[in-house]
């Protein structure tokens, strides 16, 4: 029973207090925000399923900047609907911006 996965790529702006959180922390922060937003998450298959997420680049601790993030859903989610649901679940210092990462 292969679940279909729909990737959605966004750009995340990390600033303010959030610059002190590592990329590893960010995985959990985003996972929990997605769960609160009740989006149809795609989980990795296997014995201990995880929310699938991928980053296109990393940022050092203490640095403000942008990161490309790909979310995976089990349905096709439009960017506007993601923005609407996820934005208010993100802590101050994380923002999804629509323009692509250069």
């Amino acid at each position, binding site marked *: 029973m292969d679940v279909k996965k729909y990737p959605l790529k966004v750009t995340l702006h990390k600033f303010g207090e959030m610059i002190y959180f590592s990329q590893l*922390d960010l995985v959990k922060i985003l996972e929990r925000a997605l769960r609160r937003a009740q989006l149809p998450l795609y989980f990795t298959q296997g014995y201990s399923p995880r929310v699938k997420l991928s980053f296109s680049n990393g940022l050092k601790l*203490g640095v403000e900047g942008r990161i490309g993030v790909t979310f995976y859903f089990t349905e096709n989610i439009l960017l506007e609907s993601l923005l609407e649901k996820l934005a208010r679940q993100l802590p101050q210092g994380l923002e999804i911006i629509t323009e692509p990462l250069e």
Partner: protein
Amino acid sequence: MIDYTQIQKPQQYIGNEWNVVKKNHDGKITVCISYPDAYAIGMSNLGLRIIYGLLNEASDVVCERVFLPGQDFIGELLAQKNKLFSLETKTPLDSFEVIGFNLSCELNFINFLKILYLGGLALKSSERPNTIVMGGGLANPEPLAEFVDCFYLGEFESGAQSFLEVLRKYKDKESRLKALSEIEGFYVPRFYVAKLSADKYCFERTYHYASFPLRRAYVKDLNSAYYPRRWLIPHTPIVHDRVQIEIARGCPNRCTFCQARSLYYPYRERKPEIVGQLIKAIYETSGYENFSLLSLSASDYSSIESLIDETIGYFSPRKIGLSLPSLHIDDIIGGLYKKLIPLKKTSLTCALEVARDDLRSKLNKKIDTSKLFEAAAILRALNIRHLKIYFMFGFPGETEEDLAAIGDFLQKLMHQTKIALHVSVNAFVPKPFSSWESVPMAQESELILKRSIILKHIPAWRSISVTISPIKRTLLEAILCRAPREFSKVIHNVLLKELKSSLPVNSPGDSFWWDRWKKAMEEEGFDYRPLLEASSSNFPWSFIEKGAGSENTCSKLQIPNHKLQINSNNQNHNG
């Protein structure tokens, strides 16, 4: 300003957790609460979360948090001549009206004083004109009586409203303390004198209206008690990185060495419906991917099976992890295992305490170990990576066979289950309010001998890992938990030593701490031995009433002699 890029684990100082409560202080009652240890440990404490949420419910109260910062952060604070501040609004500690500490772990007593010191507060109660320092979570408050203005004996949810009423009504410290001392559960040491005369601890009140005798206060009904629904989520890992849902408080069992059952007496359950509501509400506002159902003994929860069914029904589709840390192993393999298979559980815990059944029954511990052996296949089906097993030693009447049996037991278990075993072995401490509070503690030399016998018999296999508590740390714990009021001066002495010497970079071992405490006890002329050998029923903490059900069973029981009965042909065990 602290440059957080130069500090290790800066995440712990930011105070921007999801669901954090930040209020302005204007005209509000200001409280700061603390679990006096590192952030990752303190944030794992359930009591702190309950009090944080409960106090912040009141619109005229601000409750913030502080933990013990790392050495590098402390260095920066001191270099900049700044005071330690709260996480939420970065307010220096000495600007709060009340600072509350969870003092349930004796080894944190020094951390507690360090936080006061770094926050710019005088250590002794009598030297602080305004700030009220509260302490809770400990069985015997006496060793901290000089530092803490007011203890809460018992479960703070039951006294929180009266506490706030007093703070609203009275504005100076003396009137606040007097008013608090008249309410059940609040213990204000300055209104009582405690002294030892003719080997008996005498306890008298000096303020006529202060409560006496003192009684522990508890929540009558868990179902209507406050429970935090807006779970604080750190954006960085902590030690217990899961939502804790307390399903019951207290324990219906009567293990003789157990302190928890008397501190949380009586046994109370939260109804499955309420547990279900809490899970749903907390998941929706937190998105946490791991939950645990907490209680002292989950197996005793009346509807544990249907609770697990319902919980799994909610958790499975959402891929939420569940742990049940206190479920008895014999229950799991007896019938619950089929339900647990779909969970991503990777370890099981089993507090066996001792390896032989007859000693275990003397301790009143009920566990059927034979099931453990029958269940090898089931354990494998559960796909667990390891079994955690707890043992204790240092009991009176314990024989060499009892000690050697630990190794034999592990060997047999390993053979049958083929699962890695993580074994933790601790020495028995006669804890205040446990049924065996008046059982003398074994001598240091005897504990060392017993420890070596245990270790000698545990096979040195890679699949069995053993942690055994260092005897010196156990002794220190025992002294701190049983100490009288005059012990405050020893604690003060140790703190001064610590403030003078900057700590070595690598955290020093237990003998380093023990030597420091021993030196302080010598300097202050305090002999700790009588404290551990006491066989009377009169202790520094005896002024606090024992709750019903925590009666001393010791007088009725024959307490066997401590002397270890060494077998004459003890080589037999090596075979």
